[in-house]
């Protein structure tokens, strides 16, 4: 009887959460992105040879760099927010402000990184 639990990934992403929900999603994306990158990177360094160099070329390309910088920076800054709030739950009442601070730190930092990456790519390093 009835429909099964009605949560597809699409539906879940469609939930109108606010800032913290978005950061939660991005944190996961960042974490998984990094895990894959580091795994491949370590594997490539460990193996060496042509395969390693091929992988090296991929993650030295600028679009990949933009992606992985996002993963690292966002995961790190958001992780710091979560850690601070988690260890001092009293601060959780200020979670809205915490999100603002987080973006105030992340956006300029990441924008600068993207600028550097893109300008390096355009000038050929």
């Amino acid at each position, binding site marked *: 009887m009835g429909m099964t639990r009605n949560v597809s990934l699409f539906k879940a992403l469609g939930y109108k959460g606010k800032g913290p929900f978005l950061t939660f999603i991005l944190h*996961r994306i960042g*974490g998984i992105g990094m*895990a894959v990158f580091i795994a491949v990177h*370590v594997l490539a360094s460990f193996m060496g040879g042509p395969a390693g160099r091929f992988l090296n070329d991929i993650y030295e390309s600028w679009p990949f*760099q933009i992606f992985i910088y996002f993963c*690292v920076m966002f995961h*790190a800054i958001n992780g710091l927010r979560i850690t601070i709030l988690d260890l001092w739950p009293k601060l959780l009442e200020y979670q809205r402000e915490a999100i603002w601070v987080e973006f105030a730190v992340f956006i300029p930092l990441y924008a600068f990184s993207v600028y550097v990456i893109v300008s390096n790519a355009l000038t050929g390093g």
Partner: protein
Amino acid sequence: MKRQPRVVPLSKRGFNFEMQMWLFTRLSALAMHAIALVAFVGAMVMGARYHMNFADVMRWMFTPNVTHVQSTNLPDLDPWASLFWKLVAMALVLIATAHGVHGLVVIADDYIVKPLGRKIVRLISIVTMIAFSLMGLYVIWFS
């Protein structure tokens, strides 16, 4: 009215593996931030200001391993390849692998509910964690 402080003894407060890993995830995050900071300060002391660009400093902070900076214009690679940085980089790899693998387990826990499934995930994760830690250590030691 006077109140007795209420404290649950360690064995009964539910501080089990799950919560230990929860705490570890937070503490390891702080540790990684600290290591990145140390790497950054170290890089500045070792002359990164004159010889490296932003991207290279970032890469060095990400893992303070000499291979991450050897293609830059640094005149003297020796301080960057010291035992100290090797140990720092290896500590980071160990912490990061544990942190990351546990993160993946947490994600898997959200979707895999059956006890057997969870056991399998944990088994795979432990194997993966050890393998990648060893590979990481190997790469750093011999670079």
